[in-house]
C-alpha cells in the first residue's frame, strides 16, 4: 500500500500532464494575437467573471454552477492534502492549530455536501429539462456521477474514521458524523477499518480518474475557462482586425491554423452550456447556424488535426469538424452569443474570418452579394444608386455643406438615410430636431461615401479597406472631428473601425445627442403624444456592441411623458431584427424570418409604436409588420418620435 499508491499517483500525474500538454499545445497551431495588454485589468476581470462567476449567475441555473465551482475551489485544498498526506504524513491539516483545523474540516464537510446536492440537482435538471436536447450525454452524467462518488466516498471515509475514533467527533463535521452514525447503526462496527480503507481507495481512484478524464472531455473548461477569461478581448469585440494585403498573402481562415491561438483556446473552454444558442436569432428561427456547434466544430477540427501529423483539414464544409457555409452566412453579427457566454468566447470574429476566406480566397458567396459588392465598389452605396442622388433628400431643405470652422458636427447621413424612401423621412425629422435645438452641423452631400460596414462584416475586407481609406482621407482633409450618425452601423464603423486607420472621431448617435440636448434644456418636448405606448427596440450595434441602452429610453420618456414599454428580450439580451452582419442584403431562405419573430414579440407588448434607432431595423420592422394581419402597430425612428413632440 505504501508503495503502490505513490506509483499510481506519479503515473497519474505524468499522464495528466502529458494529456494537458498534448491538447493544449494544439492551441499553438493558431496565429499570434497579443492578449497581455492591461494585465491588472485582466486580473480584475478574472476575479469578477471567473472567480466571481458574474456572467454564470446571469441565468437562474447558474447558481448551481456557482455552488459546484466554489465547493471545488475549497475542496482543492482537501484533495491536495488527501493525495500528499498518504506519502508524507506530516503534511496534514491535523498538524495545524486546533481551531483552524476544525474550521477546515467544517468547510470541507459543508462544501462536499453542497457539491453533492448541486450535482444531484444538475443531473435532475439534465434529465427533466436540459439546456438543449442533445445535452443529455453519457459524458455529462458520467462526470456528475464521478463528482458524486468523490463526495460520498469522502463522507464514508471520514465517517468511518470518526466511528473508529481516529478522528475527533463533533458538530464541525456534521455530515461525516451522521455518516458515522449510519455506519454504526448498519452494523459495520467491526469492519470500520476496512470500510475506511475501501472508501479511501474509491476516493483516490475516482479523483485520479476524474483528473485524467478532464482533458478529454468538455470538462476541459475546468482548466481553460479561467485563462480564457483572463485572455478575453477587453474591448467589446465590435470591430474586426485589419488584414495586410500583400501579394501571395493568405486572407481569412479555412483551417484552424489560420485562426488565432485565442480562437482555439475558446474552443477548449466551451462547456456546451447552450446559452449562446439560446440567444442566437439563427437558432431561434431554424437556420443552419448554431454558435455552440460552431465552436464545437473548431474543437473537433483541432483534435483531428493532431492525428494528421499536425496539419489541419478544411474548417468549412460538412461534418462534425467543419462549419457549414450556410451557417456562416446565417450570422447577423448581433453578438448575442458573445454576450451570453460566461467564459467570453468570441464567436463573431471566427465567423468573419471564415467569411473572409470564402469571399477573398474563393470568391464564393450568396449570389445576391455580387451586386452589393459591385455597387459598393463602383458607386459607394449598397443599392447602386448614382452618387449624385445622395443629396436628394435635402432638395427642399436648407442644409449646409460641412465646412471646418463653420459647423461643429458633421451629420453623416448614411446610405439608408440618403437613398431609402422611409429612412429619408427620418433624416428630415432629424434635421428638424437638430435645427430646433440650434445644433451647428453640416453634411457632405453628394461627396459622402458608404462607410463599408456591411462589406466588412460580410468578409470582404479588401473592399472595406479601400472604402475605409477613402472615407478616412476625406474626413481628415475636411477636418472632421465630431460626427452625428443616425445609423448604428455607420456609428460603429466610424467610431470603432476607422480607429484602426488612425482616425479618432467623436461619434455620437442621434439618440445620445438628443438625450444630451434634452438634458441641457435645448430641446423642450411638448409631450402631446401621451396616447402612444412606445416599445423600444435595441439595435445590436448601438446597444450590445456599443453599450448605448439608456439614451433612447430617456429620450422616449421625455418625448412622450411616459417610460417606454419593454420587450421581454431587451437591453443586452435584445433580439436582432435580422439585418446585421450584411444580412440586410441577403435573402432569408432557411427557417422562419427573424424579423417576423421580433415583430410578433413587439405586437404582443400591446404597444402602438415600435421605436427604432437604426434604418436597418426600420426596414425589417416595416417589412415584418406586413406579415401580421390587421395590426395597427407602426414603426418610428426615435428622431421622428421627438420631431412630433417639438
Amino acid at each position, binding site marked *: 500500500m505504501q508503495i503502490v499508491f505513490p506509483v499510481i499517483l506519479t503515473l497519474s500525474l505524468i499522464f495528466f500532464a502529458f494529456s494537458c500538454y498534448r491538447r493544449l499545445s494544439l492551441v499553438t497551431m493558431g496565429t499570434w494575437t497579443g492578449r497581455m495588454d492591461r494585465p491588472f485589468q485582466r486580473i480584475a476581470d478574472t476575479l469578477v467573471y471567473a472567480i466571481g462567476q458574474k456572467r454564470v449567475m446571469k441565468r437562474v441555473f447558474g447558481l448551481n454552477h456557482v455552488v459546484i465551482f466554489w465547493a471545488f475551489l475549497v475542496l482543492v485544498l482537501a484533495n491536495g492534502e488527501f493525495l500528499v498526506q498518504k506519502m508524507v504524513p506530516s503534511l496534514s491539516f491535523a498538524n495545524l492549530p486546533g481551531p483552524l483545523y476544525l474550521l477546515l474540516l467544517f468547510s470541507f464537510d459543508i462544501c462536499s455536501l453542497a457539491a453533492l446536492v448541486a450535482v444531484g440537482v444538475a443531473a435532475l435538471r439534465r434529465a427533466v429539462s436540459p439546456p438543449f436536447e442533445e445535452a443529455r450525454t453519457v459524458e455529462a452524467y458520467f462526470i456528475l456521477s464521478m463528482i458524486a462518488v468523490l463526495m460520498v466516498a469522502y463522507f464514508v471515509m471520514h465517517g468511518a474514521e470518526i466511528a473508529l475514533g481516529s478522528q475527533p467527533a463533533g458538530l464541525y463535521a456534521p455530515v461525516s458524523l451522521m455518516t458515522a452514525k449510519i455506519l454504526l447503526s448498519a452494523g459495520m462496527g467491526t469492519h470500520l477499518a476496512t470500510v475506511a480503507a475501501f472508501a479511501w481507495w474509491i476516493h483516490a481512484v475516482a479523483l485520479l480518474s476524474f483528473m485524467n478524464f478532464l482533458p478529454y472531455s468538455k470538462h476541459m473548461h475546468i482548466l481553460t475557462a479561467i485563462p480564457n477569461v483572463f485572455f478575453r478581448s477587453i474591448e467589446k469585440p465590435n470591430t474586426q482586425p485589419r488584414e495586410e*494585403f*500583400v*501579394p*501571395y*498573402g493568405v*486572407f481569412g481562415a479555412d483551417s484552424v491554423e489560420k485562426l488565432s491561438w485565442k480562437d482555439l483556446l475558446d474552443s477548449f473552454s466551451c462547456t456546451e452550456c447552450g446559452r449562446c444558442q439560446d440567444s442566437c436569432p439563427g437558432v431561434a428561427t431554424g437556420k443552419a447556424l448554431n454558435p455552440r456547434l460552431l465552436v464545437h466544430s473548431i474543437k473537433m477540427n483541432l483534435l483531428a488535426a493532431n492525428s494528421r501529423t499536425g496539419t489541419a483539414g478544411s474548417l468549412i464544409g460538412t461534418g462534425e469538424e467543419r462549419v457549414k457555409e450556410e451557417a456562416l452566412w446565417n450570422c447577423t453579427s448581433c453578438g448575442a452569443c458573445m454576450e451570453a457566454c460566461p467564459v467570453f468566447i468570441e464567436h463573431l470574429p471566427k465567423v468573419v474570418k471564415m467569411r473572409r476566406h470564402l*469571399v*477573398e*480566397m*474563393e*470568391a464564393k*458567396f450568396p*449570389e445576391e452579394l*455580387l451586386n452589393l*459588392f459591385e455597387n459598393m465598389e*463602383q*458607386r459607394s452605396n449598397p443599392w*447602386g444608386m*448614382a*452618387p*449624385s442622388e445622395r443629396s436628394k433628400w435635402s432638395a427642399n431643405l436648407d442644409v449646409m455643406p460641412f465646412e471646418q470652422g463653420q459647423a461643429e458636427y458633421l451629420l453623416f447621413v448614411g446610405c439608408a438615410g440618403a437613398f431609402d*424612401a422611409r429612412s429619408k*423621412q427620418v433624416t428630415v425629422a432629424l434635421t428638424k430636431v437638430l435645427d430646433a435645438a440650434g445644433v451647428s452641423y453640416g453634411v457632405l452631400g453628394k461627396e459622402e461615401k458608404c462607410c463599408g460596414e456591411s462589406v466588412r462584416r460580410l468578409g470582404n475586407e*479588401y473592399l472595406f479597406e479601400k472604402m475605409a481609406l477613402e472615407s478616412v482621407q476625406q474626413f481628415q482633409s475636411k477636418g472632421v472631428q465630431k460626427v452625428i450618425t443616425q445609423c448604428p452601423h455607420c456609428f460603429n464603423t466610424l467610431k470603432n473601425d476607422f480607429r484602426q486607420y488612425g482616425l479618432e472621431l467623436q461619434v455620437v448617435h442621434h439618440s445620445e445627442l438628443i438625450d444630451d440636448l434634452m438634458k441641457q434644456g435645448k430641446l423642450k418636448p411638448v409631450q402631446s403624444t401621451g396616447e402612444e405606448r412606445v416599445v423600444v427596440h435595441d439595435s445590436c450595434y448601438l446597444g450590445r456592441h456599443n453599450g448605448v441602452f439608456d439614451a433612447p429610453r430617456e429620450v422616449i420618456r421625455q418625448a412622450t411623458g411616459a417610460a417606454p414599454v419593454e420587450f421581454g428580450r431587451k437591453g443586452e439580451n435584445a433580439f436582432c431584427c435580422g439585418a446585421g452582419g450584411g444580412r440586410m442584403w441577403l435573402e432569408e431562405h432557411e427557417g422562419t424570418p427573424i424579423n417576423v419573430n421580433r415583430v410578433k414579440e413587439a405586437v404582443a407588448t400591446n404597444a402602438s409604436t415600435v421605436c427604432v434607432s437604426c434604418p436597418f431595423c426600420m426596414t425589417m420592422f416595416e417589412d415584418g409588420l406586413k406579415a401580421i394581419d390587421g395590426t395597427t402597430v407602426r414603426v418610428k425612428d426615435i428622431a421622428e418620435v421627438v420631431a412630433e413632440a417639438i
Partner: protein
Amino acid sequence: MLAIACIKQVPDTTQVQIDPVTNTLIRDGIPFIINPYDAHALEESLRLKDSHGFKAVALSMGPPNAEATLRKAIALGVDRAVLLSDRVFGGADTLSTSNVLSAAIKKLSESDEIGIVFCGKQTIDGDTAQVGPGIAVRLGFSQLTLVDRILAIDTEAKTIRVRRKLEGRYEIVEARLPAMITVVRELNRPRYPTVPMRLRSVNGELEVWGNSELKLDTATVGLKGSPTCVSRIFSPERTKGEILGDGMGDPIGAAHLLLDRLIGGDLLAV
C-alpha cells in the same frame, strides 16, 4: 484555341448627366466601368477556359486609362490582356473601331487559332450594337448575335450551337468556328475576383499595341476613318405621363388615385 472577349471601358452612364446648355455629356469626375454586357462576354470566355481549355484573351481599344479595366480582366483570370491604344485610334466610330479590333484579332491569330470572339450585345454609352457584327464581317467569322445560351461546342468538328434571344422568341442556331458571338446578360453570371488574383493583377503582364504593331492605314482608323458625325445629343422631352397624388405624404391616397385611374381607363389586364 482562343476565346477572345472584346471589352470596353465606358463612363458609368447612370451617373452621366447631359449639360442642358451644350447638350453634351458631362463626363467630369464620372467613374469608368467595364461595359456591363462586356462583363458577360468576358465571363463566357473564362468559362470556356475552365470547361474546354480555351485560352482566354481580353481585348480592349481605348485611351491609356483603359488599363484599369484590363487589369480587372487579369484579376478575373484571363491568360492575355491586350490594350489597343494609340493617338491615331482616337475619336473612332463603330466602323474604325471594328477595323482596329479586327486587325488585332488577326494579329492574335498568328500565334493561336481563334475559336470564338465574344462581344457584349452593345455598349451603354454608344448603344449601336455594330462593333461585334463589324468584326465578324471583316474577319469572315460566323455571326451569332444576342446569344443567351451556348448549347454545345465541338472543338474537333469546329461547330457551335447557341440559343439567340430575340423579341418574343428564341432561335437555336448552329455555326462553324471561328465565330463572333454577341451576348445578352442572361447568358451567365459574372464571377468576382479573389483577392490574391486582384493583388497579382496589379503587376500582371498587359500588352499594349499601337498602330506600329497593327500597321493599319491611318485613313481607316480613328477620327479619320470614322464617317459617323454626331450632330446633337439631347434628352427627349417627356410628353406623356403625370405624377398622381402625393406618394411621400399620403401613399395610400396616391395608390387609390392610381387604382381609380387604371380601373377607370380599363388599363388592367384581366
